[in-house]
């Protein structure tokens, strides 16, 4: 009997209607209006790569050990080095092909001196394919995207 009354008076439909109606309050809105509100990014986020420098001396921390290049599944890191007078390795060029990178973080895990790091930058769009291949300078400075505020 109760079942019949529920069917006649569309109780199941009205329950659904009540739920969607209750969602119209402003506190229920979940939208984040990008580019005005940027998403909070986690600390461990694997974003754009960066080659870190020693904060005091300004020199690169990279010791050109080539471990990142060996660890990468896509073989997209090319490390160039030369030997100095005291038979130590000095980094000359560092090329990172961002178009093939899958941001897996294996290079970051492999680096013994924390020179190569995947930062929290996610705005890394470029206008050309060649622009996606970053050289040492871009890796050290980071991408400079235009910031839209409207």
């Amino acid at each position, binding site marked *: 009997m109760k079942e019949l009354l529920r*069917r006649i008076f*569309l109780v*199941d*439909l009205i*329950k*659904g209607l009540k*739920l*969607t109606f209750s*969602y119209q309050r402003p506190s229920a809105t*979940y939208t984040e209006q990008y580019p005005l509100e940027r998403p909070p*990014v*986690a*600390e*461990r*986020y*694997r974003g754009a790569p960066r080659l870190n420098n020693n904060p005091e001396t300004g020199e690169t921390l990279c010791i050109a050990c080539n471990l990142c290049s060996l*660890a*990468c*599944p896509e073989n997209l890191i090319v490390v160039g080095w030369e030997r100095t007078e005291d038979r130590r390795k000095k980094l000359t060029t560092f090329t990172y092909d961002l178009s093939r990178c*899958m*941001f*897996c*973080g*294996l290079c970051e*895990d492999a680096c013994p001196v924390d020179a190569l790091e*995947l930062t929290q930058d996610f705005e890394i769009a470029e206008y050309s394919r060649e622009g996606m291949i970053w050289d040492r300078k871009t890796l050290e400075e980071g991408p400079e995207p235009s910031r839209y505020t409207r």
Partner: protein
Amino acid sequence: MPEATFLDANELVINMGPQHPATHGVLRVILKLDGEKVVGTECVIGYLHRGVEKIAENRTYQQFAPYVDRMDYVAAVTNGMGYCEAVEKLLGAEIPPRAQYTRMALAELQRIASHLLWLGTHALDLGAMTPVFYTFREREEILKIFESYCGARLTTHAFRIGGLQYDLYDNFERDCRKFCDYFLPKIDEYEELLTTNRIWLSRTKNVGVLSAEDAVGLGSTGPVLRGSGVRWDVRKAQPYEAYDKVEFEVPTGERGDTYDRYLVRVQEMRQSVRIIRQCVERIEPGPIFGKVGKVIKPPVGEVYHSIEAPKGELGYFVVSDGTVTPYRVRVRPPSFVNLQAFDTMVRGHLVADVVAIIGTIDIVLGEVDR
């Protein structure tokens, strides 16, 4: 293409092309219709084939782990878990309990996320356009936890062979508990919107019925199998990690129709919350990496290991020839095998049910095609 004109209602052949809003990816379904009834189907897959298994032959074991996430891109964490466990089985490595419980918590969170996506898109296919936004909002919370833990939301690469790369971040337990408390009432909301709704019932009851014998015979696993009444869950039947130490139930359906599979998945979300709560309680301080060397060179041999991914039984068959790269990695994708049941399920139904049935099998083309 048909010889008769289309107005002749016998045996019309219609193509539901690879680009279709409702086929959950690039799936091509060729339907043979008699009027509005479907009398035969043929699924054409391979539009997303990327040669993942071939790539495995040319990468080291650790290097292959990120590729594995991209198969079932909706549930990357469980993909990684299956692969890492398979290789660990080959190595004979032991995982410390802290790593085990963390892996379980993350895998169950991923199960919830995958089922949420399934629910949203299934409801959207059937015309209810609001649940998708609610489920994606909950999924967003889970992805935030993943992002805080391993740095990526979708292609997580969360686990390493031998344990975990990242230890838990500071608020992991608190975030998981908060999520569980926040999420349980939301499941009730989805049920309020759909479970008793007469339109939903008429769209899903007795649609796509798969009997238990057919389900077992066609090799279906996961919610497709459990919806038909067969109580088989790899977590209970062949426990891995620490699943034998946590309590949870395995929901099963009765008739094997779309509605039962819907109920099974919703109940599974509730059970996953239960598992997460238990795992988070039991995480003790300790090591996160087992005794696995830096270079992974398993002894010559082969192993097949399967886990209960959200979509079904995900299996990895890894053959090692003693070098640092595997000789062969064969993936048993649950969606691929479940898709075989599509033909049995859809015969005799109307065209409008095809979309509902594709949705209820819960396929991800990345997995079907690899």
